[in-house]
């Protein structure tokens, strides 16, 4: 499977990445290469094989319903480009 330029533009837009017109052919080719590489797996016959969620035989760990975290607003906001009265402040995003 190869990726055409239209699809490459769509993938970029879904990932919120800017791709210039000059760049797009090169990116499409790179993504195609990745797809071709992964496509090698098609050579393996997986009919009737259950998906393996993890190579290690462990179960999902659950936790008790207790409040053990939070109340660290300073740490949470420490990387925010802008904040006010403990809110994150971002460019207006309403429609």
């Amino acid at each position, binding site marked *: 499977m190869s990726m055409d330029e239209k699809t490459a533009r*769509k993938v970029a*837009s*879904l990932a*919120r990445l800017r791709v210039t017109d000059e760049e797009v052919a090169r990116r499409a080719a790179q993504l195609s290469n990745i797809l071709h590489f992964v496509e090698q797996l098609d050579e393996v016959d997986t009919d009737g094989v259950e998906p393996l*969620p*993890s190579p290690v035989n*462990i*179960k*999902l*760990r*659950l*936790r*008790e*319903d*207790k*409040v*053990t*975290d*939070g*109340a*660290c*607003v300073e*740490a*949470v*906001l420490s990387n925010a480009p*802008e904040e*006010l*009265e*403990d*809110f*994150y*402040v*971002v*460019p*207006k*995003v*309403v*429609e």
Partner: protein
Amino acid sequence: MATLIKGETGEWEVVIGMEVHAQVIAESKLFSGASAHFGAAPNAQVSLVDAAMPGMLPVLNEHCVEQAVRTGLGLNSKINLVSVFERKNYFYADLPQGYQISQFLHPIVGEGAIEIDLPDGSSKAIGIERLHLEQDAGKSLHDQHPTKSFVDLNRSGCALMEIVSKPDMRGPEEATAYLSKLRMILRYLGTCDGNMEEGSMRADVNVSVRRPGDELGTRTETKNVNSLKAVQQAIEYECRRQIELIEDGGAVVQETRLWDPVKMETRSMRSKEEAHDYRYFPDPDLLPLEISNDFVAQIKSTLPELPDQKKHRFMQDYALSLYDASVLIAERGRADYFETVANDNDAKLAANWVINELLGALNKDGKALKDSPITAAQLGGLIGLIADNTISGKIAKDVFAEMYASGKDAAAIVEEKGLKQVTDTGAIEAIVDEVIAENPDNVAAYRGGKDKLFGFFVGQVMKKSQGKANPGVVNDLLKEKLG
């Protein structure tokens, strides 16, 4: 109650399905130990997991899994022993991860059905498609600043159940009946508080129209429908819009629309279209969720009696109508109140007094049942006095008003005010004689064939006895004396 809508070119059937997001009652969030309580200061209940700091890993809250299973059982649905968390990818300012952890191909709960009660007294089964667990997003405030949005992540990561119905509803009444029954079940189960004003229960409504008997038409999804009334209005608006569109030669576009409760209309959210490419894939941070039959059985053994079971029991054991039973089961507290009143009493009478008198009076005052000045045992006492003929039904209403105002027992009020019904034939006979003696003209007219005057005599006797004469005895005596 399949309501057909008349268009310009014939009749149309409306087909409705609903997706309801219900916030799970839990102490902490779905994948982090931050508090899940409502109303804290901005960002005070956010862990580094909820803020999606690099390297943070989600750890699943066992109680949220129990709550989802409990809800699934309450919706008579299949519980899936293996389910998978996936990432639903999209960008928004209040979604710090850039994806929502949700369930897609393998939800924790599969198909089932609930019963809805309709205004005409009938009921209908509505299919449940699935229920899955997912994270809630944070909250954005857009009205605090001209060019900025404010983001509070307290809600980010709280557990939600998304409950998807089958497209089994055929009109706005069925849709609101479904939503209120669903809310009732969640409240009985204690898995969601069902508070639509605070947003702990939110509905998206899928609407399409078709000619009766045709294949399903193209549907639209309307968001922001956050009260029973809004559900009704949004569906009415949306099906009329679709019918007009088709009848004018157009076609319905599958899209997301937004309900505007001020303008009373739905409008297209075009910008949402591209975002619908969610690129789900299994979350590599989380293994599949496996639960055992024992785990499910353990939860099943703790389920309360559910609204529909209660409804059927009330109809069977107390011989109540479907309507009375539906009103009484609407809240667990109300049903319990009724059962205390009905204990050792005439159940039909108890139902009437709870529904018509008590709920009527509370409703008028804007009070909840838990704030009722009359306890269930006290109301039972009043009904006992009616049933054993101590007081008449008419006097009982006055006693009720007094109880409601003072909180006193019925027996004490009856005693204090001397309201005991007179059943002593001799005493009533004296009054009857008096009334007959005082109204010779009417007596003659009655005997001459004016049967309607009988009511006049009853009224006079009751008046003279200050309402305390037993109406049955009065009737018998008057019939005998007037001949």
